[in-house]
């Protein structure tokens, strides 16, 4: 396994061949799931705020 730090530090880093592994695939997957979750959460907050506006005052 190649350390992720090495990949991020060296901007010209090039995987030697298709056998090389790192934690980058997992990091990308986590990043993408957080990306979707945050987008959906922002949507939820907006919808909740807008459609329940005035409810509490009642």
């Amino acid at each position, binding site marked *: 396994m190649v350390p992720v730090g090495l990949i991020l530090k060296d901007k010209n880093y090039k995987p030697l061949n*298709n056998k090389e592994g790192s934690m980058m695939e997992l990091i990308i997957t986590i990043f*993408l799931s957080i990306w979707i979750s945050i987008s959906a959460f922002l949507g939820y907050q907006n919808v909740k705020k807008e459609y329940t506006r005035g409810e509490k005052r009642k």
Partner: protein
Amino acid sequence: MNIYLVGISISFVAYLVLGFFISKRVKNANDFFVSGRNAPVILIVGSMIASYVSTGMFMGDAGEYYNGLFSPMTILATMQVAGYIVGAVFFGKYLRRAEVVTIPEFFGMRFCSSKMHKLATITSLITIVVYLLSVMQGVGTLMSLVTGLSYRLCVILSLIVFAFISITSGAKGVLITDTIMFGFFTIALIVSTLIIANKNGGWYSTVERLQELNINGLLSWGGNTDYLYSTGLENVSWGIIYGIVWLSVCMVGPWQSSRYIMAKNEHTVIRSSIFSAFGIFLLQLLVGISAVSVNLYDAKLESSSHVMIWAAKELLPTFIGVLLLTGVLAAGISSATTFLSLVGTSVANDIFKNKGKPMLIGKLSMVAVCAIVLLLDYFNSPQIFWIMFFGGAIVAASWMPVAVASIFSKRITKCGAFCGMLFGFLGCFISKLYFSISGTVFPVYLEPTLIGMAANILAMIVGSSLTKVSQKERETRALLFVVPEKEKDEKEVVKTIKYMKFAPLLGLVVFLILLFVWVVPYVKAIV
């Protein structure tokens, strides 16, 4: 007789018959341009996905997966789908509330400016025509390859089909045919991917064998460094940048957000976005799995964009192959019907509003655009992927920042919005033209869309700081935040909030799918 020609001919006849029957249900201009504004979730989702999925995905994107950009393309595809949810909530909902017929009309209304309306119309029409050209070339190429008929004849035949549907049945017909075609190509793709992956004893075993090939980074995080960029970080950056660009397109692109105008209500807009996002993520992943697997059989296809056609003909049983290719063609036709219908709606409502019979004007403009696209196709060789990317780039650069600011900024003025849209368009167009003519490959951070977006934001800030927001603009914006009485139905509100409460779990679903479809089999194969 060529079996693929038989399958395609049957599907074409079916679409024409369908278009004919739906046209009988089109009673007025409201039906023709916005499908009576009463489309349910299923039709909005079907049309959203069918408009997005075209030959661009089955040919252009598939080619990139095949060439070794599995990771960058997965990043792009997953980042962009967030645009559906964000777009529906932060733009589509207000668009629906404004009760406009077209998106350029929304910009004109929001900024109380006919100039803004005209500029948005011009940029919208350019984008749609460019995109229509790309889809038509894709359909023509595919049909010609599998049937043996000449490319020009295939372009004309497919044009007759999508023009007939759009011209006779308008938006109503487009929504229904799009949804049927969406069901068709989704089933075809799922079945085909399962067969292709199982040919080597399942997907995990396919990944193991793919790793034995001597192709650099086929499934690794950095992708193939012998193809697009020479380093993994640049390839990943490309995926992220285009992920943001296409997120913008999914958010505000006319062929996507116009579906919201046709929805039954705001709740339909919001709920449909979750299904559209997940549907497109899944379809992209299935295309990626199928396309990258083809490397096991032939890693040196002459044209990578033909990878799915090759798979359909060489790897699948004949019937399934016909089903897949007819499904790909359906994806192309469904996108083309959406684009053409949008052109008609825009010309009749943005350019010739209150000047004659709108439906007739819409239909005539569709005929004229068909002629223009045919002419453009005659002088341009098919470049599906890059033409499609150009269309998307223009929308992202010229519309996205202005669209968001039109809802959420109190300071943006009509001058700022106009300058932003104009400079966003010019910034993207000129830099793209420069890189194309000079033949230079732009560094990943100098992507023309980013240049256009930066120009857009800068011009918007300068233009708005030099002018003042008028009282009318302030009032128009404030009205967008008033929830209409009909949208306050308690049952509907509770249901929508419940949907959105669970929406963040989509991130977890995406994580689990990518973990077990990409990370685990890849790590198992290399360790």
